């Protein structure tokens, strides 16, 4: 067991973790933050994407102990004071989700893409979201939602 301190959605948690525990399972099973989902076991699908120190990270590619002293944002922490984050709102407005299983990762990857200034065109958005798979939407409305928030046509 290793003792770590994670700040998740602004709240500090001190935990003793098994070294092999992946961050995604720490979030889901130790902290009960089940909004983050697991869609594969090869870091291909991106469903488990969270923000670590502001950057999109597939939380199945990182051990919980590696996140010691880091700040993590999960889908549960994105809205503030009951107001959806603009990306969440745009996903709703543009029908950018159907079953919703990939949505938490897709939303957080989109937030990171927009905040990093890389969402400069439809094509840049499509390439920027390459690490996140969706099987329902064909990405059409996801891309439209991100374009709307990023202000690119």
């Amino acid at each position, binding site marked *: 067991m290793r003792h770590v301190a994670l700040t998740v959605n602004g709240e500090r948690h001190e935990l003793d973790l098994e070294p092999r525990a992946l961050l995604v399972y720490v979030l889901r099973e130790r902290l009960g933050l089940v909004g983050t989902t697991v869609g594969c076991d090869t870091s*291909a699908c991106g469903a488990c994407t969270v923000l670590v120190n502001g950057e999109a990270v597939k939380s199945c590619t990182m051990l919980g102990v590696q996140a010691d002293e880091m700040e993590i944002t999960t889908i549960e922490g994105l809205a503030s004071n009951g107001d959806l984050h603009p990306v969440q709102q745009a996903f709703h407005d543009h029908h950018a989700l159907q079953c*919703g299983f990939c949505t938490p990762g897709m939303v957080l990857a989109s937030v990171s893409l927009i905040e990093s200034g890389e969402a400069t065109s439809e094509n840049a958005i*499509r*390439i920027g*979201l390459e690490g996140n798979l969706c099987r329902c*939407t*064909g*990405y059409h409305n996801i891309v439209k939602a991100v374009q709307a928030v990023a202000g690119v046509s």
Partner: protein
Amino acid sequence: MTATETAPTTGTFVGTSAKRREDAALLTGRTTWVDNMAPFGTVVMAIVRSPYAHARIKGVNLEAARAAEGVVAVFSGADLAEDWKGSLPCAWAVTEDIKMPPHFPLAIEEARYQGDGVAVVIADSRALAKDAAELVEVDYEPLAAVADLEKALADDAPLVHSDLETNECYVWKLDAGDVQGAIDAADVVVTRRYVQPRLIPNAIEPRAVLAQAGPTDEVTLWSATQVPHILRFALQLVVGIPESKIRVIAPHVGGGFGSKLDVYAEEALAVALARRLGRPVKWTEERAENYVATIHGRDTVHELTFAATKDGKITAVSSEAKCAMGAYLQLVTPGIPLLGAWIYNGPYDIPNYSVTFTGVFTNTTPTDAYRGAGRPEATYVLERTMDALATELGMDPVELRRKNFITEFPAQLASGLTIDSGDYHASLDKLLELLDLDEIRSEQAARREREDVKQIGVGFSTYNEMCGLAPSRILGAIRYAVGGWDSATIRFQPLGSVQVVTGTSPHGQSHETSWAQIVADRLGVGMDDVEVLHGDTAVSQLGMDTYGSRSLAVGGVALWHASEKILDKARTIVSHQLEVAPDDLEFADGAFSVKGSPEKQMSIQAAAFQAHSAHNLPDGMEPGLEATAVYDPPNFSWPAGAHAAVVEVDTETGDTRLIRYVAVDDVGSQVNPMIVEGQVHGGITQGIAAALWEEAVYDEDANLLTTTMTTYLVPTAAELPSFETDRTESSSPMNPLGVKGVGETGTIAAAPAVINAVVDALSHLGVSDIQMPATPERVWRALQEVKS
């Protein structure tokens, strides 16, 4: 989240793109996926799976696993043999002499595909269960295996089930008219062979189950399933608990595409072991496991023949198909080809018709329903052969299609069914307006002229399909074991809110929103007054679930009929209390008013309160305002449309890029155009993916080679363009909503449009066919072949 509704008036919501009520929870992580749950005392199940495609199980040593940390129990297939009252069910014995080998949740003597379960470990956590599973020692004697369905039919092929003495599962035929006569009399006969690869559905949520036994033999199963009702009765057959003691809950379910329309070994195992152990048992599939343990789709080889006159009138279609079953028959495995059996003529008037399917066992994961189920297979071979015939005749492929369109509706087909409605020219006209074909052809001519490395092509697919599964009598006639109806219950609460209980089970299709639109309109209440309940057999007792683009055309129509019953009873109450004849009342904007004196009125919500207080009801009337309707459709519904793909092919590398995809669909009336369009986008994408990227590949020994999402190419946003979509509307006369179904149309239409485009791009170089998926290697090889 802001409410989107306006004042509640009848006809306010249906036909509008109301935003989804499902989104609020899904966008903020307040979800109920099965894997999110673990009642107190839950233990975790891991399955030990055969690494061999075919092997005799000579012994299973469980001692080391049983001694491992955190292990609660370990069982082999033999240990649990007595737990099963029956085999995992196959509900579709398509012929009288079909071979239906038993299929138990764990293999006992032989493993017949890579991934077949041979033992199960129960431990305190996911990690400990996996650790212990690695300690199970199975003594396998590898046997010869076969994965290729044509090789499986050879005389010397390894037998998947040696006691059957053949790998042929069944032969099913449908003949109408005189196909041979038409071929003999034809000016032109075109025959083409098509291989349609095996596909992996890839719902992003893997399967998951959680079973909890209660104190009096009842059991609750949470499952990531499309079919909680079907699962409930199937579990009785496998585990032996009466259905009345089984509760199946499908909470948030993360996509299905047919892959969760099944009764799986893990569902039966979790129930049986929760009862044995007296603790909740949970299993969550990993993706690598999903690729072998959850059904696959397609895997067929067709030979399609057209007979035609020299001016392009098709006089006969004949299809011979071999269809892989995999190692066992899952819930509807043998019936999947039959779902396409009546659309080998598609939207075309073809008087002579013959379809034959041969089901074939192979040492592979069982196949079953994958989006479109039988209809993409039929449409692919039909629409590819339309292009082949056009080339043969020197005709424009669009003109050939127009020349053969059915134009009179309802249309009685040679094969026996009747198409409800349609206007195939209208969809094609609209498609051509959006496409600007002249511009594409001129660009194509210019690139050909200058021998550009990058050539472009355009491909068409004018399709129809039959969905809205299904009239129960027809299902019975084609030997499907259960009915095709669905149910709706509408219940006014005393203070006027409305509960809708549906027998459909959404997993991304937005029923909560669309069903509320339908009911709010019919009852004249606000959408926010309507709560839609589903996916729990304790709440929704009657249902046939969600698959085959059936939910709106069957379950949605049931809502309409239940609404009519509610209005009838409310009208009787109002008529009694206002002391007027029922016929003197008119219903609008949620209230009954007396014709001629509109100030005398009572809202439906007030009538609901009166129904519950029961102080002043007509003699003999039962209190409460609730109604159930069970609707059995009189016919399938028949969506149709016209799609076109434009591709650019690099003739040096074989790389194909989809530049445009234009789709005009006719799905009947639309309840929510935004949701319809979303379904079209997703459906198209799966069809495009089959055409260009996706293929489950087995090696000679029947080992699956595409075992991850990095080797099986599920498309990302980067490979796809934005789509151009529009719709025409031929309302279905079969139901009062005029609806047809949209879940599968895109997948049915898209693959042939894309491959037709690839072939069109290269046709001037001599390429006449590319098998799916048109990978760079396949395209490059096709080009090398025509060069040499």
